[in-house]
């Protein structure tokens, strides 16, 4: 559907269960998803932008759909910073919005986003990147269970390095926060956090608390009878005609 909308140079919002893509003339200009931190989280968590500055930009420029532009013109952000942060957020949200489990797709023509256009990306590039990211996750560690479950650190083997970024991730992994929540706490894109969690899982440095206590709840006993869907009486005459027709062909 995205490719068709790109071909007809559509403008509007592509709505799915896990997120929304905004198109202008068939190119992706913005994306957001409840699963990924927005620009505001990415910029304010690390202290790059005070929350008041963000709110001011939304108040003053949101109605003209030029919040990104306002942040640069008012000297809060540089062009390069805005582009790097925004592209990161767009591809991050698109990954979740375009996931196969994201449900039905609707398109509302003419709908725009208040953030405004920063650096449009072709719809094909977004779709290709989303696919590449899915394959990358599975190449690192092909078990999706660590994507949504809270994880806890495991002790490193002697001489096993972790790296500063992943040390910060491990320090925040308390067995309650899911990877999506960790991303928000750290002010990092959600896909990057998923990828780091899978890399840590592959290295044996995290586990889900369920792994630690596998026998906490016994599996439910199988039902004693297998339910059979109700069937109305077969149409004997129809079955005879079918048999005759098949025999005539043999």
């Amino acid at each position, binding site marked *: 559907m995205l490719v068709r909308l790109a071909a007809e140079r559509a403008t509007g919002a592509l709505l799915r269960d896990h997120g929304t893509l905004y198109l202008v003339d068939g190119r992706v200009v913005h994306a957001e998803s409840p699963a990924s931190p927005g620009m505001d989280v*990415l*910029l304010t*968590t*690390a*202290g*790059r*932008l005070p929350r008041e500055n963000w709110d001011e930009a939304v108040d003053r420029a949101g109605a003209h759909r030029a919040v990104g532009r306002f942040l*640069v013109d008012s000297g809060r952000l*540089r*062009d*390069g*910073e*805005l*582009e*790097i*942060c925004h*592209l*990161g957020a767009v*591809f991050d949200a698109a990954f979740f919005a375009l996931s196969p489990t994201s449900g039905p797709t609707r398109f509302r023509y003419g709908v725009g986003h208040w953030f405004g256009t920063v*650096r449009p990306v072709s719809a094909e590039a977004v779709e*290709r*990147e989303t696919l*590449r*990211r899915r394959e*990358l996750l599975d190449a690192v560690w092909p078990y999706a269970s660590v994507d949504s479950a809270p994880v806890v650190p495991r002790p490193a083997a002697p001489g096993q*390095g*972790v*790296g*500063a*970024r*992943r*040390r*910060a991730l491990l320090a925040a992994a308390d067995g309650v926060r899911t990877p999506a929540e960790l991303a928000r706490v*750290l*002010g*990092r*894109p959600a*896909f*990057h956090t998923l*990828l*780091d969690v899978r890399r840590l899982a592959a290295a044996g440095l995290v586990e889900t608390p369920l792994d630690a206590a596998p026998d906490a709840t016994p599996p439910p006993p199988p039902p004693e009878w297998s339910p059979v869907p109700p069937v109305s009486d077969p149409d004997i005459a129809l079955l005879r005609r079918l048999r005759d027709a098949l025999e005539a062909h043999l």
Partner: protein
Amino acid sequence: MPGIDECLMEAMTLPGARGASLVDWNSGLALGTAGESPVGDHETTAAETAELARAAAEFDSFTAAAEEPPAEDGGVPPVEDLIVTTRAGYHVIRFVRTSFDSSVFLHLWLDRDTGNLALARIRLGDLAEKLVLG
């Protein structure tokens, strides 16, 4: 105040420049590209250089000493640059320092005969700074 495209265009004006890109080393995403790729596909080159950059950025042997001064800030790359020399060219990978959490670098591919490695290294450092500081 340059954006990504202006920054890459400027990198391409360096002597012997054949290709330039801005890449996220955590995901392997190319945020912007200019010129050619050694394998004919910028996205493949981005994914491959990202793996190399990630190794340098994450192994403690390269990063341990650098962590002491300003504390572990997500936006401050402990490694400044990487240089890979091949028979036909040079690859300069310059980490970009941002004040929000990010993981991006500039990659410049130079021709070995016409490129000037020392100049490219200095200019790429300036460009990385200009990209985020204006």
